[in-house]
């Protein structure tokens, strides 16, 4: 297998970054995008070849990195993630062409974005610990720069970037510990060597490595309780960057968990996977609940990322569980479902973030309570968001549905053949899947209905115009992928099957039989998404025809009449009388009051003359993140207290510093002697 594609990817990515840095403002973005596309296409071709042949692509060079050298091995599992990243990156950079004039054409941004894309394309190809960590760090730093793009204009951006930097580096150090520990025991830092030695490792080392990796990669994937950076960094980053972060970067967290858990350590005891499933369940529910109650469009999308990654983790956990109970075929199906959910998530979340960015550009706001009526003013963006929203709510005939069906099937078929722990975990998983599905549907009915339908709630929304063509096209590309993947998921399933068969030991080469129908091999479970879609389309046309026919017969067939809606007898109806996103989510917020703990603030001020007359009433409500408030804030507080205390040690007096030196010297001598 030629490794040319990896080389071209790296060179094109580097050229894009140099072009973004060096060229004048006029041509900078175009050149960077062109080179980035080169990188993406080269990576895409290479990854598709790997998926087609099943042979890994290898690149070794001792000259690039000092001391360690570079080892790249792109296997089918990694290739799946490369393809996802490449497609999302092509759409996002296309979008960037139109978006650049909105603060994303600076030298830093034009250089950071290609580096970000290239590092994400190469992370799944890393074949050794050092290569992996270098690329991982490059990805973290370049994305941090992208989050910071707006920092001059917005105060929140700086705080968001701080959170992101801390979380991502805390995660990276956990990963560092895990991988270094494994490579130290193996005596070699290539993944291949670690894999061979992992079997002989003591259980304590394996457990520690897995848990550290779960924490590190979980924080990248936005798994609750390590998700706190997601709802801060995703909204503040410029939209092409948020689409890349949510559509491509968080996936690499999932890749990391599979890499360490399944590939390097070769699976583990049931409690590992029960932990993964539990984290998945909590993430899915917590994310969906917050998505359902958020009013900031991009914050909603960020929480829904945590929710979707939770579902993927449920799939991975289930796969590991079924592998431990000796059912590799069902484990493979669960792994395929997890990978399919990842692919799907990239498609719909990418299109949603890009169209949310278009909304922000067109209206100047991403607060749902200030939007409305955009479907008539921005028809293309509206339809793209509608498709993405329906897809993420797992509605047929779109792609989210196929992934969740597969996950449900794997849970159902894995259940009756397993241990007690599994018997308890699986119904809980199904319930979480279901509640998440319902909450997600509510969240996106809210986002679409309040954001794009009804009357405009602000001047910005009322005067919005459709964004430039490239932006529409970039978002529409991914929405198109949602439709295609929903109707003919068979085009990606063989590749995912190949990747899953490699990950799950002892899995059959074909766990699914995918033609027009999607059939679970050896089990009773069939789905024909294309036929369902065709049936729906046919029924849709038939119903419209029937309605037309009924009207033709009636001799009353006149044009559609626009009328004033019913206002309970009130003549004037204003946009302020509509339900807002806050009011839409209020019932759910009340039902889940104990989990969400919203801050409510009611101020009633009375007239000076009499307390029986109110002068004004102010009501504020906001939903913070319970975990951020109860776990992270105390932690930050403790660090601050410690810092304050440590300040007492430093008062600038040279005498004191000399005394410290003396004390340390004495202690060191005492220890040594």
């Amino acid at each position, binding site marked *: 297998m030629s490794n040319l594609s990896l080389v071209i990817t790296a060179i094109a990515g580097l050229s894009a970054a140099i072009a973004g840095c060096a060229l004048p403002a006029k041509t900078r973005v175009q050149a960077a995008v062109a080179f980035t596309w080169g990188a993406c296409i080269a990576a895409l071709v290479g990854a598709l070849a790997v998926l087609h042949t099943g042979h890994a692509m290898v690149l070794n060079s001792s000259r690039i990195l000092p001391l360690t050298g570079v080892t790249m091995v792109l296997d089918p599992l990694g290739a799946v993630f490369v393809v996802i990243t490449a497609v999302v990156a092509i759409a996002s950079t296309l979008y960037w062409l139109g978006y650049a004039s909105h603060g994303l054409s600076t030298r830093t941004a034009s250089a950071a974005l290609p580096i970000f894309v290239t590092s994400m394309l190469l992370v799944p190809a890393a074949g050794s610990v050092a290569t992996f960590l270098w690329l991982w760090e490059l990805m973290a730093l370049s994305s941090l720069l992208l989050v910071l793009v707006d920092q001059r204009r917005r105060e929140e951006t700086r705080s968001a970037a701080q959170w992101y930097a801390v979380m991502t580096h805390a995660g990276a150090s956990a990963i560092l510990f895990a991988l270094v520990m494994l490579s130290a025991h193996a005596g070699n830092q290539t993944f291949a060597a670690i894999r061979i030695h992992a079997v002989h490792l003591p259980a304590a080392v394996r457990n520690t490595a897995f848990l550290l990796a779960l924490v590190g990669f979980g924080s990248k994937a936005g798994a609750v309780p390590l998700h706190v950076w997601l709802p801060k960094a995703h909204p503040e980053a410029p939209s092409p960057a948020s689409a890349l972060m949510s559509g491509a970067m968080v996936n690499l967290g999932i890749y990391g968990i599979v890499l360490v858990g399944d590939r390097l350590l070769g699976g583990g005891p049931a409690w590992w996977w029960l932990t993964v499933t539990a984290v998945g369940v909590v993430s899915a529910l917590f994310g969906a609940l917050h998505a359902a109650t958020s009013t900031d469009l991009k914050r909603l999308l960020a929480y829904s990322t945590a929710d979707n990654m939770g579902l993927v983790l449920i799939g991975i956990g289930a796969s590991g569980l079924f592998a431990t109970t000796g059912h590799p075929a069902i484990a493979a199906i669960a792994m395929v479902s997890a990978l399919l959910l990842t692919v799907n998530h990239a498609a719909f979340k990418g299109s949603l973030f890009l169209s949310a960015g278009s909304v922000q550009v067109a209206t100047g706001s991403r607060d749902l309570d200030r939007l409305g009526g955009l479907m008539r003013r921005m028809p293309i963006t509206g339809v793209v968001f509608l498709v993405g929203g329906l897809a993420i709510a797992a509605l047929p005939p779109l792609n989210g549905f196929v992934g969740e069906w597969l996950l449900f099937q794997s849970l159902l078929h894995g259940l009756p053949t397993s241990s007690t722990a599994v018997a308890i975990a699986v119904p809980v998983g199904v319930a979480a899947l279901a509640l998440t599905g319902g909450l997600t*549907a509510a969240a996106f*009915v809210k986002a679409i*209905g309040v954001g794009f339908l009804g009357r405009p709630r602000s001047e910005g929304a009322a005067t919005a115009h459709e964004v430039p063509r490239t932006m529409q096209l970039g978002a529409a590309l991914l929405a198109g992928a949602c439709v295609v993947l929903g109707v003919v998921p068979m085009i990606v399933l063989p590749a995912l099957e190949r990747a899953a068969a490699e990950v799950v030991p002892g899995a059959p080469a074909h766990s699914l039989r995918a033609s027009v129908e999607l059939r679970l091999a050896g089990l009773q479970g069939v789905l024909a998404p294309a036929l369902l879609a065709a*049936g*729906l389309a046919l029924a849709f046309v038939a119903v419209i025809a029937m309605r037309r026919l009924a009207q033709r017969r009636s001799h009353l067939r006149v044009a559609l009449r*626009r009328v004033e*809606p019913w206002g309970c007898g009130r003549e004037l109806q204003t946009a302020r009388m509509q*339900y807002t996103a806050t009011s839409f989510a209020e*019932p759910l917020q009340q039902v889940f009051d104990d989990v969400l703990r919203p801050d409510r603030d009611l101020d009633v001020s009375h007239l000076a003359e009499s307390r029986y007359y109110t002068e004004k009433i102010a009501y504020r409500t906001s939903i913070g993140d319970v975990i951020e408030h109860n776990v992270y804030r105390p932690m930050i507080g403790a660090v601050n207290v410690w810092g304050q205390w440590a300040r007492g040690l430093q008062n600038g007096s040279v005498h004191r510093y000399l005394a410290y030196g003396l004390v340390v010297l004495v202690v060191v001598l005492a220890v040594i002697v």
Partner: protein
Amino acid sequence: MNGIGGVIAAVLVAGAQIAAVAVGGPLLVGVMRKVRCHIEGRVGPPIHQPLRDLRKLFSKQRMRPDQASWVFGVGPVVLVATAVLIAAISPLATTRPPLGQTADFFAIVFVLLLGSVALALAALDTGTPFGGMGSSRAMTIGALAEPALLVAILAMSIPAHTSNLPALVRIGLAHPQLIASPERFLALGSFLVVILAESGRLPVDNPSTHLELTMIHEAMVLEYAGPDLGLVILGESMRLALLLGLLVNLLIPWGIADRPGAAALVIGLGALVGKVVVAGIAIATFEVFTAKLRLFRLPELLAGAFVLAVVGAFTALVIR
């Protein structure tokens, strides 16, 4: 089934089931109203009154609120289209419906959800307070009903090793002891509560309320008139008939056609109508003696349904 003859047979079966649901749905609503009126000591409209209403509505002019987009018009069409699709592929009159192999219970639930979401979006498109109110409440109830529904499906699917609907009904026919098993009862009890919630019946929603503030479903469709309203009413009644049809076939499958042939199909249709009417009468009777629950008491009801379903799932595992 093979060749052109097979296709024609499949189309005929689908057509028969769709026709039965499309005509039977409104008639079922008529029957339920009649029963209610009878118990309350009123005469009530004739049973076929809903069909007459539909005929009248479909001959009227189409109207749309002045700020609404195309979503408002498409919502009811999607609602009916999803019901038509489910009517075609579900095991209602026969255990071998066309495309029955893809009539997965999970898939059916999400196709139904597509209809609900389309209507909820259309309601928000009206730009009025009532549309949003109904939409918000309906989506809340839908979200809370979902876990009960899916776990109930899981509980029914565990002993059968499949979640394919026709297969679930066939297994009931072949092994009657599966139907009498506690997990099937618990799951179906949970399913019944979900049906009441999803189709807007008491004690979740009052289908005949006239006060906008207490409405859920009616608030969503307040702006519809003429043919669009006709589609909404048709779609909702079809959904009720479909869900009850599935419930009765999972509970008492006997009578359903298990082999090809026109005679079996006709018997199957007759049996379906009989079973659904009995179920409808039972629900209507229950509604007379029930008051609507407060909106914020509903989570308790749905949580109860969820617990039933979970107990059903665990029972299925233990009994196995």
